C-alpha cells in the first residue's frame, strides 16, 4: 500500500518538477498597460532588450497568459478590469507589480482615484522598484520570478484561492460592487 502511495507521490513530484521547468522557461505575459511603467515594456520586449530570450512574450488574452503585469498605478476603474482579467487566467498564474504605486500608492498616495496597495486586492509575486523601472530592472524582476517558479515560491495564485474571501472583501470595499454594467457613459 505504502509503496504505491509513495510511488504516486514520486510521480506527482516528478511531474511537478518537469512542469515547473517548463513554466519557468516559458512565461507569457498579458499585454495590459495599466499605468505608466508600461512605457518601458516595449523597450524590454523589443530588439534592445529582447525579452523573448527569457522565453517571455506578449499574449493577447488573459486565458493564454501566465503572468499579469501591473505596470504602475491602478485607478479604481482599472482595478476592476484587472480583477476580471486575473480571474480569467488559468492557473498557475503569477503577478508582477511595477513601481512604487503598487506598493504604497507612490506619487498618487493622495489621489481620490488611485488605490494605494495592490496586495490588498490581488496577490503579488514580485515587486520591481523604480519609477519607472529601467528595462534592465524589469528583466531582472522577471528573472527573479523565474527563480521563484523554479523554487516553488511563486504561490500567489494559491494564496488568492485560499484567502479569496478576504481579497473579495477588500475588493468590494474599494469598488463598491465588483461587476458593473459599463454602459453608463454611452
Amino acid at each position, binding site marked *: 500500500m505504502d509503496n504505491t502511495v509513495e510511488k504516486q507521490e514520486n510521480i506527482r513530484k516528478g511531474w511537478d518538477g518537469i512542469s515547473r521547468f517548463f513554466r519557468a522557461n516559458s512565461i507569457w505575459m498579458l499585454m495590459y498597460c*495599466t499605468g505608466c511603467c*508600461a512605457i518601458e515594456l516595449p*523597450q524590454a520586449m*523589443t530588439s534592445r532588450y529582447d525579452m523573448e530570450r527569457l522565453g517571455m512574450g506578449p499574449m493577447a488574452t488573459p486565458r493564454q497568459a501566465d503572468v499579469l503585469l501591473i505596470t504602475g498605478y491602478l485607478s479604481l476603474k*482599472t482595478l476592476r478590469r484587472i480583477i476580471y482579467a486575473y480571474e480569467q487566467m488559468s492557473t498557475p498564474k503569477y503577478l508582477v507589480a511595477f513601481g512604487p504605486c503598487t506598493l504604497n500608492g507612490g506619487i498618487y498616495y493622495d*489621489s481620490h*482615484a488611485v488605490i494605494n496597495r495592490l496586495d490588498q486586492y490581488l496577490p503579488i509575486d514580485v515587486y520591481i522598484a523604480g519609477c519607472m523601472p529601467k528595462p534592465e530592472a524589469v528583466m531582472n524582476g522577471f528573472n527573479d520570478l523565474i527563480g521563484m517558479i523554479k523554487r516553488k515560491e511563486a504561490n500567489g495564485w494559491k494564496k488568492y484561492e485560499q484567502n479569496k474571501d478576504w481579497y473579495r472583501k477588500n475588493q468590494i470595499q474599494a469598488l463598491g460592487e465588483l461587476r458593473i454594467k*459599463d*454602459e453608463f457613459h*454611452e
Partner: protein
Amino acid sequence: MKEIKLFLGPQHPGMHGNASVHMYVEGDIIKRSYLLPGMLHRGFEKSMERRTWMNNIALIPRICVPEPDTNEMVYAMNIEALAKIKVPERAHWIRMIILELARLSAHLMAFGGIGGPTGLYTAMYWAQADRDRILTIFEEITGHRVYHMYIVAGGVRKDLPKGIENKILDFLNDLESRLPEYEDLVLNNPTVRARTVDNILLPAEVVWELGVTGIGMRSATGQEYDIRKVAPYARYEKVDFKVPTATYSDAQTRMTLKYQEMYQSINIIKQAIDMMPGGKVRAKVADGSALRWRVPAGQVYSAVEASRGEYGYYTVSDGNTMPYRVAVRGASFPQGLLGVEKYMPGHRIDDAPLWFDTMGICSPEIDR
C-alpha cells in the same frame, strides 16, 4: 444583421494605453462606438492643487507618458508668464533640444506603433530600438529615461553634460540614415498602403468641428497650423524649419507627415546645437527655498505643439505656494472622445485600432 457589442480594450493588443472603445458592430461595420476613458484617471488636477509649484514637477510628466516634456514645458511657461520671469537664453535652446528629442521619440514610438494595428511588428522592433538611444541620451542629460523632470520654471534643472552634443549629433546622423529604411518598410510597403491609403479620412470640416490639432489638422487643411510657427515659444522663431502639410488626410498622409516631421526635428536639433549660446540656464522663480515659492496671482493658458497637437495647461494662481487650479488640455482629447463617438462609426472593425493609432490618441492625457 444582428448588432453585437465588442470591446476594443482596455486589455487588448490593438489598444494603445489603457482605454476602452465600446463598439456596436453589424457584420464587420461599426455602427456606434464610444470611448470609455478614465482607466488612467489619477486626479492630477486635484493632486497638483495639493503640491507646491516646484513639487508639481514630479507629477506633471506623468500626464502624458510617451512625451512627458511638453507637460513640463507648458507648466513652466505658465509660471514664467505669471511670475514674469525672464528665462536665460541658453535655457531656451536646451529646452528646444529636449522638446524636439521628445518629439522624435514620440514619433518613433507612434511610427513603430503602426506595427500593432497592421501586424507589421518589425517596424515596432526597429523603431523601439532606435528610440532606446534617445532614452539613453535623456538619461544622461536629465537623469531618467522617461520622466525627465528637467524643464522647470525659469529654465532647465541642470546644464547639459559635457560632450552630450556630439552624442546627440551622432545619433541624429545615424537616425537620418536609417529613416529611409523605415520609409521602405512602412510607407512604401504595399500591404500597409492597402490598409492606409484612402482609409480613415479626416476632412477639414471635421477638424474644425472637433477641434483636432497637430498632424491631423495640418494634413487636412494644408495650412502651417503649428504652434511653433503660429505662436512661437522657446526659440522656434530663430530656427529654420518647415511644417509638412497636406490637403487630403487619410491614414497614409498622416503617417507620411509624421515621417517628414522627424526630419524637421532632426534639422531643428542640429541648428539648436549649432546656435546655442553659453551662459546660465536657470532663473529664479521666487525668493527663498523651493518650499516657499509663491507665484503671483493670475490666470494664464499656455500651449505647445506636442507630437499629437496642441498641448496646453490653464494655470490659476491665487498668489500662494500651490497652484489654485490647473486644467490640462490633452492634445488628443477632441478626437479621442468626440471623434470616436462621431467619426469612428462607419469603419470596419479591422480599422478601429488603426483609427485610434493614426489619430494620435494618447489615453493618459485624456484621463489625466
